[in-house]
């Protein structure tokens, strides 16, 4: 196999399963939240809270794995990201002929959308968890008086705002995943690998050392 075509691991199987599990549960949560509002009536409550619990478990698993088994710093925004973004702006505005430096495993844009997803998802998960005291589950009976109506009002607003923001975020995330110049990232989220050529073209080896598949 030519060196350029050699496969390098970008996402391990467990990380891909966590990503797609979170993606599917998020889409189910959005569907069960908004389809009834748009006039498609069905029994959505149980599907919604069960999907919420699945998402919560997957987010906790992803957080533990990222913290102890992966390089947490690869998702951290550093000075090089900010410097390269400034250079990207200068390059786009034709103020410089020099293209910006290559990123590590993740570009600044990928880090930013991850962090916005994190904040929005956590807001939805925490408020959704609090809202579950108002429904019967196998573990407890509903108690609508656990918090005051005014507190629940704020919780509903945060939960709804997070859900609405997720519509925008999912649209933008899927759009960039389908961009022709990003398809190797999308393939790696399905199959796990990128080629040595893609690694050399899109990543700085000093910022992301990668293992052969």
């Amino acid at each position, binding site marked *: 196999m030519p060196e350029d075509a050699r496969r390098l691991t970008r996402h391990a199987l467990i990380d891909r399963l966590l990503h797609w599990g979170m993606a599917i549960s998020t889409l189910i949560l959005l569907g069960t939240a*908004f389809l009834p*509002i*748009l006039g498609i009536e069905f029994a959505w409550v149980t599907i919604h809270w069960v999907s919420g619990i699945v998402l919560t478990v997957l987010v906790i698993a992803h957080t533990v794995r990222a913290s102890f088994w992966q390089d947490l710093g690869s998702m951290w925004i550093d000075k090089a990201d900010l410097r390269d973004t400034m250079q*990207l702006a200068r*390059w*786009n505005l*034709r103020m410089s002929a020099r*293209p*910006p430096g290559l*990123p590590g495993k993740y*570009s600044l844009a990928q880090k930013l959308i991850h962090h916005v997803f994190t904040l929005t998802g956590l807001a939805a998960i925490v408020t959704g968890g609090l809202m579950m005291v108002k429904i019967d589950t196998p573990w407890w009976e509903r108690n609508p008086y656990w918090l005051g*109506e*005014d507190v*629940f*009002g*704020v919780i*509903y*607003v945060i*939960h*709804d*705002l997070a859900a*609405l*923001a997720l*519509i*925008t*975020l*999912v*649209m*933008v995330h899927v*759009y960039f995943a389908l961009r022709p*110049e990003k398809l190797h990232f999308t393939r790696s989220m399905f199959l796990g690998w990128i080629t040595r050529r893609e690694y050399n*073209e*899109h990543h700085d080896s000093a910022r992301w050392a990668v293992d052969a598949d």
Partner: protein
Amino acid sequence: MELLRTSRDVWGQEVLQGMSWDLIPVFFGAGAAIILCHLLYRWLLAPKGQSR
């Protein structure tokens, strides 16, 4: 356009129910606008050969 949904409790006081669902097209439109802006940027402004 309303930003919030409210109702009245049994004592007639206004109670917050969440964000207004009139905002669904706004957030959908924001996603579409970001995508459109990026498409225009790539088509009109981005240096040739840009892969980032």
